[in-house]
């Protein structure tokens, strides 16, 4: 038994990558600290403008809280949307607001996540601009704000997900709306060009970027648009952004949801939930590829594994098989198709259930198994192929996620990533798979802002580190 355990341990260590940023103090550890505009040490004790003072330990943070308890009327405008707690908390937030006002970064505030397929951009539109500010605001900043907020589509491929907009929220002491915009990574050169044309560099803002593209396009930003990127780790950003949005809520509703009765198509319903006490959780991020993280706290997590069979695979193979061109098109086809014409089921092989191993007849025995036969290949519809592709990829992710959850002994599995966007087939299937194969032990959770957490996390980093520039 000792042997057994040590072996698992060894595997755990070498088979996965363990990150613990707690010591670095990137982010304060205090549980109630909701965003970068924390920083209890904003007073003179930590020096001017250190928005996020790098308070590492809980005890230090507590003492700071205590210190500020007596000064709760010193703060300025009480515009904290989240500020509905105790007087002490309110006081704390005001102090924070006060302290950061002097050091908050110049507008515009962007967070960017450049993935393999999509670029996710979040933009904070301040709505509390004073007349004084309005006057000071340079023209080209104004034009950016207008361009982004008055359109829902940009160029041929850029889209603003209006339904995801977070309204009247406070970040870094400012009230505003958070906008969610996406465009294909392929359009990145155009975007950089636009940055140059609009003379973005004159705004002296920091462009916080995460995702692989932050590295890949760093040089292009520099040489073409005279912009320095602040490159951020994508998993750090993902977790930070996710926890933040979940805490903020979705315009009064909850960010999270799950499916009740996932095993029964008739009574399966979407139910709201929050990630109260979120740790530990298994976080499955399905973008072009898939990363699976075991998250123990905001800064303590490890990447358990990943798979290359992700959203990119679904779309890539759908394009090859059906000639479709977009994710929406592929999903539309999939919604009309029937995968059992493509997949070989257990009952196709055994005539019914394979009782010896408790396999139901309707379980898929071989994905695309019917396609080994020429006659069936010749008669299959594109819709069926798209559906089978979707089901295959989804089930596979579910299967790997479930194994990881069991191996890591984590019961809560949170699925995020843009593969799940407008994709109820997959979310329901994942919910079902988690429930069925774990005999109810595991629960699949989903979040409304699926693919944007990395970008939100990047924006938070901007607000945290502004004074470093």
């Amino acid at each position, binding site marked *: 038994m000792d042997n057994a355990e040590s072996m698992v341990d060894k595997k755990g260590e070498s088979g996965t990558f363990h990150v613990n940023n707690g010591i670095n103090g990137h982010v304060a550890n205090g549980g109630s600290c909701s965003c970068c505009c924390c920083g209890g040490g904003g007073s003179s004790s930590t020096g001017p403008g250190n928005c996020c003072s790098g308070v590492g330990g809980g005890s230090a943070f507590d003492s700071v809280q205590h210190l500020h308890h007596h000064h709760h009327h010193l703060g300025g405008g009480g515009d904290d949307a989240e500020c509905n707690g105790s007087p002490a908390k309110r006081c704390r937030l005001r102090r924070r607001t006060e302290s950061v006002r002097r050091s908050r970064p110049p507008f515009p505030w962007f967070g960017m996540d450049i993935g393999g397929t999509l670029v996710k951009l979040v933009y904070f539109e301040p709505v509390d601009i004073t007349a004084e500010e309005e006057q000071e605001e340079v023209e080209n900043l104004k034009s950016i704000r207008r361009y982004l907020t008055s359109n829902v589509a940009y160029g041929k491929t850029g889209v603003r997900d209006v339904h995801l907009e977070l309204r009247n929220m406070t970040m870094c002491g400012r009230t505003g709306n958070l906008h969610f915009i996406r465009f294909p990574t392929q359009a990145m050169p155009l975007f950089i060009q636009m940055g140059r044309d609009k003379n973005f560099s004159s705004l002296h803002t920091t462009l916080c970027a995460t995702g692989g593209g932050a590295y890949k396009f760093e040089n292009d930003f520099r040489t073409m648009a005279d912009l320095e990127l602040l490159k951020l780790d994508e998993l750090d950003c993902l977790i930070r952004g996710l926890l933040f949005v979940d805490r903020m809520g979705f315009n009064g509703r909850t960010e999270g949801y799950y499916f009740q009765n996932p095993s029964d198509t008739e009574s399966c319903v979407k139910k709201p939930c929050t990630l109260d006490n979120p740790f530990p959780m298994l976080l499955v991020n399905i973008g072009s590829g898939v990363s699976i993280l075991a998250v123990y706290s905001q800064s303590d997590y490890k990447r358990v594994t990943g798979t290359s069979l992700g959203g990119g695979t679904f779309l890539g193979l759908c394009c090859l098989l059906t000639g479709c061109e977009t994710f929406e098109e592929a999903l539309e086809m999939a919604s009309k198709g029937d995968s059992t014409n493509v997949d070989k089921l257990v009952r196709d092989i055994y005539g019914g259930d394979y009782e010896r191993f408790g396999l139901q007849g309707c379980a898929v025995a071989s994905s695309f198994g*019917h396609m080994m036969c020429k006659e069936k290949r010749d008669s299959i519809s594109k819709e069926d192929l798209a559906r089978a592709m979707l089901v295959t990829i989804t089930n596979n992710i579910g299967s790997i996620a479930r194994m990881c959850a069991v191996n890591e002994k984590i019961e809560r599995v949170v699925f995020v990533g843009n593969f799940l966007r407008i994709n109820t087939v997959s979310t329901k299937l994942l919910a079902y798979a988690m429930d069925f194969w774990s005999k109810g032990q595991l629960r699949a959770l989903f979040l409304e802002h699926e693919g944007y957490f990395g970008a939100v996390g990047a924006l938070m980093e901007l607000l945290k580190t502004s004074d470093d520039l």
Partner: protein
Amino acid sequence: MFTKRRSLLRDAWLLIGRLGPTYIRHARSVKSVRTMAECGGGDSSTSSHTMDKSITLPPDEIFRNLENAKRFAIDIGGSLTKLAYYSTVQHKVAKVRSFEHHTEDAASDKLYEISVQEEVTARLHFIKFENAYIETCLDFIKDHLVNTETKVIKATGGGAHKFKELIERKLGLKVDKEDEMTCLIKGCNFVLRNIPHEVFVYAKHADSEFRFQTTHPDIFPYLLVNIGSGVSIVKVESEDKFERIGGSSIGGGTFWGLGALLTKTKRFDELLQLASRGQHTNVDMLVKDIYGGSYGSLGLTGDLIASSFGKSATADKEFSKEDMAKSLLHMISNDIGQLACLYAKLHNLSRVYFGGFFIRGHPVTMHTITYSINFFTKGEVQALFLRHEGYLGAIGAFLKGAEEDNPNQYSWGENYAGSSGLMSVSPDMNPLQRARSGTFDMLEMDRLERQLVNLPLLQDSSSYIPDTVDLTEDALAREYWLDCFEEALDGVVKRAIGSQPDIPEVTERAEKFRQKYRNKLQTLRHQPFAYGSLTVRSLLDTREHCLNEFNFPDPYLKIKEKENDMALKYYLKVVKSLEELGWEQRQLALVRGVLAGNVFDWGAKAVSDVLESDPEFGFEEAKRQLEERPWLVDSYDQWLQRLKQGPPHKCALFFVDNSGMDIILGVMPFVRELLSRGTEVVLASNSGPALNDVTNGELQILIERIAAMDPVIQAGLMDDRLTLVQSGSSSPCLDLSRLDKVLAMVVRERQTDLIVIEGMGRAIHTNYYATLNCESLKMAVIKNSWLADRLGGVSVLPCCMFQKVLGVSVTTVFSSGTCSVTLIISEHHIFTVS
């Protein structure tokens, strides 16, 4: 048109078979014929149904011994059928018997009576062929089946129901279906238990693609990942306990189905070939495509696939079939590997075997799966493959049907003469093998008379490797030894003919033997991994199996008798002269005697040539020929020290070697001395004949004779301090992990504390590195023609190695001389004598 080409093609292969190895060099031209035939034929799996009747098979070479067959089982897969049956084989066996009344008046000049008897042994036959041939095969079986007791045929595999009616109609047997997975597991257990080099790891770019593993004596628990159209992951805990712990729908069927859709290529093999030529990086999105380089903080290198088919999500680009097939192959292999690792980790299992049609002998998939497992476990788990993976279902179905015969009670051994061996199906492989693997493949297992177990004194039975040199991995040594065996073939044929002077068709049979063994050697030149690790032992064993196949049970029988007879005459003289020596002198003389006796080895070509041309070459001559000490490997001083200082050994187990001078004048005086010291002696000799090695039957008679002359031996026998046991083997070499159960019992009962291993086959080719839990003495002379040539005559290099318990290093001393000699045992193990 196709039919004609197909049969032409078959003729071409048969021709190659007949012409033997010289033709192989021109085989490239034949390969082009095959390609042509394939083009003409198109999809053979569909078209062949209409033409199977017209194919004439060489079925008598394939369905062997059908007259004595009973108990059939069949496993019908998607494209291949595997048939299994049990038969009894009549062997001619040479028996020696003592004359009833042995008198000292030497009225008869024969030492013992030799008779050739028929012996019946059991054999398992497994034959694999394309489904296309199934009807022809069933017809052939029906026509030749004599046994009418057989009423049912066990069937398994996905295709079993499809052919049920056909089988019942053709054979008149009731088809009895067995669960596929149960059969698979049963078969897997059987091969793991009975075939020492069943398991291998695949290493594409290594010197030898196939690296065979020592099977742990305890084969459980293990994970079997069966990749058919889907994937089943089964945990096997004991013979009867197994559980499907998981699976995946992304398997071989997904590769085939999706691959066919993407590339319009119908056949699985062709898809694999496409894949082997493709570049997946054109289709897959790699980490570096997203990051511009690696994702350093997570240790993900730039070449890792971030998203399979991630680059194909675009309408304005065409992708080649090859690239898509390659990408698909990687996607599926990686996915299966990842799941297998997750399950292995969850259940804490480190032995993971892969099988199913996706794997079956395909280097491409074995490579991608191996890569995947390595990646996901960081090398902690190895992907293991099985040499007889394709037969598991058939073996299991057969075993289900044969439960009343208790086949699992016996030990079985692979018959190298009747088995095709592992065929690589990589496209650029030897065309001869490739063609055969596509049509027929055979496995034969002989029931061994004795149940075989580990020697209890092996230090670590799970890491014990009998063979000193793995010729699979050592190309230089391989070539050298294959040449040796090829050169020696003439002599073996000659001796085989000589052993049966009065039988008319002996020359014909001997020629058949020559052809078969030469073909085997040829196969091994191209595919050294065909029967597991290639070793001198396996080459010798293969020769013995081939000789038996053509009813040459004991070609050295008469020679052995002659030598024994001659040596017996000298026995008393040798003993007397030893007695005249002082104790210390005598100890050296005894070891020298064993070494000198060991020169008389007909197995070594150099020696046999001399003995044949110069019968006067005797024991004394051999002693004179021995190098002076220090010998090549010389720890005699330690041995002497041990004799002087330590108490007598409790019991010595002595693995003997040759007949004649060796056993009688070399070994027996040594044994006599041990007995006199108060050490019990167990003499272990071969159960069956191999070269001129003394067999258990012969040794019993010889000991009787010696006892009649020598009161010390007589007393030893009477007091039961001198015992004879069988080794359980019929090999000139020695595998200490497969020994007769009785021997193991005696060793344990008598508290054996010394093991003596004698001879080149047992102490040099095998067991040179064996470590034991007791003291051991290894004595041999190295002799072979290659060396002899260099020395301008017969020369022998004695080795005497004494090992104390565990970990005492052996002193190697090179003898001095005038000429410089290098004896290649292996690339890494070169004795230099200067």
